[in-house]
């Protein structure tokens, strides 16, 4: 059922929007072209920012520096009651969406989908977002260089959310 909704949502939405426009007498073809014209420019504008972020994340990840950091943090996070198994996910999630998903898959494969680590990892992955990519993308698109408090606020709330998410996971497990 969920799968049908997920596959159907985009076509059905397009159908509703275009159908509504047609009934209202909008020249939907011309309107579509007018809007779509902006797509190319918009995408090209964000390219340098994406390259910059991708490279930094790639180097940090593939040099195993990320693993080193995870190992350094482990004793501290253990003390704070963060399940050791999901620590790599906590570290990777803000910098890479596909990386985070890969870790969730590993955790589920190794501990099982209904184990506690598999449970926490699933919930954590679904309730967090890739921070650095999103910021580079959106700020880059309008040439904002001074981000002010954005990153700080985001990282602090991510930090707090980790604990609330673990708490919720325990509650419902």
């Amino acid at each position, binding site marked *: 059922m969920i799968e049908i909704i997920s596959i159907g949502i*985009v076509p059905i939405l397009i159908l509703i929007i275009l159908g509504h426009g047609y009934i209202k007498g909008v020249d939907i073809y011309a309107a579509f072209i007018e809007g*779509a014209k902006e797509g190319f420019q918009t995408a090209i504008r964000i390219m340098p920012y994406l390259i910059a972020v991708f490279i930094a994340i790639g180097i*940090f990840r593939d*040099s195993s520096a990320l693993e080193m950091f995870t190992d350094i943090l482990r004793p501290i996070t253990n003390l704070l009651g963060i399940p050791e198994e999901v620590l790599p996910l906590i570290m990777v999630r803000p910098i890479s969406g596909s990386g985070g*998903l890969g870790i969730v898959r590993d955790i589920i494969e190794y501990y099982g989908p209904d184990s506690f680590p598999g449970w926490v990892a699933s919930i954590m992955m*679904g309730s967090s977002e890739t921070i650095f990519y999103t910021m580079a993308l959106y700020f880059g698109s309008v040439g904002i260089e001074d981000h002010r408090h*954005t990153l700080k*606020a985001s990282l602090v709330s991510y930090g707090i*959310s980790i604990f609330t998410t673990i708490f919720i996971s325990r509650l419902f497990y």
Partner: protein
Amino acid sequence: MLNTIWFLMIFIGIVYGIMTGNIEAVNDVILREAGEGVTFTIGLIGIISLWLGVMSVAEKSGLMNSISNLFRPVVRILFPQIPRAHPAERWILMNFIANMFGMGSGATAFGLKAMKELDSLNPHKGRATNSMAMFLIINMSALQLIPLTIIKIRYDYGSNNPTGIVGPTILATTLSTMIAVIIGKIFEGGKS
């Protein structure tokens, strides 16, 4: 801050790579990711164009307006600095809705449009406004309600209850977004 983090990620990565004899992997990843940045952007062009086209229809038919009238109070509370009925309101809402339903590429297209509108209200170009910061902070706190990809993975690995995570995930997402809004409001201080 991003300046420092960006440098540190590259610096630590390369130095650590040299120390552990991993420099080949570092070299490979630099070349690969530079190309990946280009392919990724090109991959986005089609989907972004599609959504901007479809939404242009919704804009002209008045559908977008009806939806933003419905949810306007939410925007008014979160973004008090946006003038009433400014186009930024609409695109922010479209971005939130697309995000909630897990339409990532649509959300990106609308989000970029929202940023453009927010920047038209920006008195200091190149510097983020409170509204921009809040918009991103909310986006980076995750809004998606049903994590379909995760459910699929759980199903594939034989979970007894693949969708069991939906309730807790919605709760966790709601909480994390509320936390993000509060922290965002605290950190923005009195400045515009």
